C-alpha cells in the first residue's frame, strides 16, 4: 500500500492560519515537526518545533504521537 502515502491529501495552512491553529490550542495538543536539516533548524525554527530531518523520518516515526495533529514544514 505504499501508493497511499502519495495519494492521501494533506491540508495546507498558511503562516496566519498556522499561527491561529496554535494560538487556539494548548501546546501539548499538537506537534510541530521540522523536517529540514539541522543547520536550517539552527538558523531559525518555529518555537516548539521538533526536528526530525526528512531522511530520518521513517526511522523516527515513533517519536511523533499519531493521536495529535502534526504541523509539518
Amino acid at each position, binding site marked *: *500500500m*505504499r501508493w*497511499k*502515502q*502519495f*495519494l*492521501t*491529501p*494533506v*491540508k*495546507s*495552512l*498558511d*503562516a496566519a492560519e*498556522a*499561527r491561529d*491553529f496554535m*494560538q487556539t490550542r*494548548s*501546546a*501539548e495538543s499538537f506537534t510541530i*515537526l521540522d523536517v*529540514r536539516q*539541522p543547520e*536550517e*533548524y*539552527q*538558523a*531559525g*525554527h*518555529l*518555537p*516548539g*518545533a*521538533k*526536528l526530525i530531518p526528512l531522511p530520518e*523520518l*521513517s526511522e523516527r*516515526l515513533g517519536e*511523533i504521537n*499519531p493521536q*495529535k*495533529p*502534526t*504541523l*509539518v*514544514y
Partner: protein
Amino acid sequence: MLAGKGYQVYNISGGIKKWDSPAAYGLPEQGLELFSGHESPQETLTVAFALEEGLREFYLSMRKQVQNNDVKQLFSRLAAIEIKHQERLLNEYNALSGEAWTHETFAAKQAAPAMEGGLTTAEYLRIFDPDLESTADIVSLAMSIEAQAFDLYQRAAEIGSNPHSRSVLKRIAEEERTHMAQLGKLMAQLSDDG
C-alpha cells in the same frame, strides 16, 4: 509519508520563510545544559526562576544603557513583568516544598541567574540586533526571548525523566506562550499610543 500512515497532517505552506511571528534559534540541544533531565519539580522551578531572574537583570541593565525615556520606562515595565512570572513559580515551589521562601531570599539563596531561553545576552543582541532606542524593537526582542524560552521548555520536557517535572515544564512552556501574547498586546498598545 505521515498522512499515509494515519497521522493528521497539516503542511505549513511557506515554512519558516513565511513565518512572521517570533522564531526560535539554535540546535535541539541549545540551552539544555541548564537541565539534566533528572530534576525534581522543585529543581525545575528553581531553574525556571533563575532564567526569569536573568531576563529581569538583562532588562534592568539595558535600562541603564539607553537614553530614550520611553524605552527606559519600557525596560522597567518588562523587568516588573518578570517579577510577576517569578512569583508564580515561587508560589508553586512553596506549595510543593511546604516552605515559605520570599522572592528576595529565594533569589539570593536558591538561584544563580541564567538567561531565559538558554541564549546569552550577547547572543540575543547579535541574533535580533534591536534598535535599543526603539520601543517596538524592544518589545519585539522581548517576544523573541519568550519564544526562545517556550522552545527551550518544550525541549527540556522531552528529555525529562520525572513525569511531574515534565508536566511542570509543559505548564511553564504554556505560560511562556501566554507571555508572548501579552507582549503582543503591549506592542499593539504602544502602536496606538505612538
